[in-house]
């Protein structure tokens, strides 16, 4: 079970990243849960200043960009 978190205040970029993350998880075929973190304080606590950021199992893997589904799949696979 992979825990995917999207950190961002909710602008269109975060929506795009969420969609890509879901596509990637389906592509890889792992069980996953997806959560959006929109509270600024939580985002900063996770060590993120550039949104949208992607975190997998509590580890931030990218900040400030919209990763493609293929890139996210690589992170999910490892």
């Amino acid at each position, binding site marked *: 079970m992979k825990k995917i978190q999207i950190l961002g205040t909710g*602008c269109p970029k975060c929506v795009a990243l969420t969609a890509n993350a879901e596509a990637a998880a389906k592509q890889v075929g792992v069980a996953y849960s997806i959560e959006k973190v929109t509270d600024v304080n939580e985002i900063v606590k996770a060590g993120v*200043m550039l949104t949208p950021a992607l975190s997998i199992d509590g580890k931030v893997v990218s900040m400030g960009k919209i990763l493609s589904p293929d890139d996210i799949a690589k992170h999910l696979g490892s």
Partner: protein
Amino acid sequence: MKRELGIATALVGVFLFAYFVPISDERVSNALLEAFRMLQWYARNHTLACVVPAMFIAGGIGAFLSKETVLRHLGAQANRFEAYGVASVSGTVLAVCSCSVLPMFAGIYRVGAGLGPASAFLYSGPAINVMAIFLTGRVLGYDLGASRFFGSIVLAVIIGLMMEFFFRREERRRNESFIDMPEPPPAKRSLLQTVLFFLAMIAVLVFSDWSSPSQTMIERTDGSRMKVSVLLETTSIYRVQVVEAVGNLSKGTKQDIPKSEIRVKEDTTPAGYERSAWIYRNRWYFAGVCLAAVLAMTFGWFDGGERLEWMNQTWTFAKQIVPLLFGGVFVTGFVAALIPEEAVGRLVGGNSLSANLVASVIGALWYFATLTEIPILDSLLGLGMGRGPALTLLLAGPALSLPSIAVIYSVFGWKKTATFVGLVIVMSTLVGWAFGAFV
């Protein structure tokens, strides 16, 4: 669920509007016409030369400038001069999307350079992005564009320093959970190349957007002549402002003249503006040369992936901003036609201290979607708002709104939030007032 609820509310809203709008009422049908006029004015005059190039620049900033490099200067170790300097101007490159400002602000405050630079960044960040500045200059006049840019930067530093001073005792050691400022990716180009690339893009915008310094003499079919500046041009009418009083029209009167009634339209540019007028006539050649330079650099210095990333970013902005801007223009045109001119004049006309204060408070509380503050002000200025209060609203507007105040409160606590809001309102009022007295 929340999203579906939003859609439902919007549908009900549109339905109620369509059901109840008194379309045969003359004022309402006039307002609808006015809304379309304003939309056409934007489409014809502000879109191709200003919004489109600005969007490519914003996309380029998102794709090619390393935000990590900038943020490093706002980390805990940065010295104060550096931190204030970077915080107050970095909005131009960091905050192309206003929703990304708040996490950066919280980060700078919590684990980075501290209260002062964080406040400075929060204040200037959303106001000085490339698109906002160019569109302000283009639509509202270069005096307001330039004052908005420099006013925001200077006020940012002042407000930051004051915040730090007021809360100097409370500036205890903040939590130690030090954020590793993200490692900047290795540079693919020299700084000079990046600078040249952005300068060339901005030059395209400056030239394509060069405004005519002209005054126009209009002779109507009935033989009357008047000296005017053209405010708005659509397919069928000119809206003009009278520059010299004629007959019963006093200076400053605004009037719609159908194009069919105009016999001669003559350019009477005052002396001294020849050079500017010359650039205006040849602006497409200059812009073309700069554009060729941009294209050459794009294909010489960037690889295919980067070009794709640039286009993706630009498209993201376009999707986000174009509906807001054009929707905003339309709604503003409609609403402005229904607002009585005297009411605007009474509240924010002239340049009294109270007019500036009202503009400041409205700006601080109201939420302006990205760039819509510009058409709104455009309409308000047409209804008689003073230029001083207009600048005040531009200075207080983007940094604050009720929703953003709520987020700032969750980061800062009420004391600092109240102080920050108070400072923004007071300082914006004073600067707008001074500007209004000056112009």
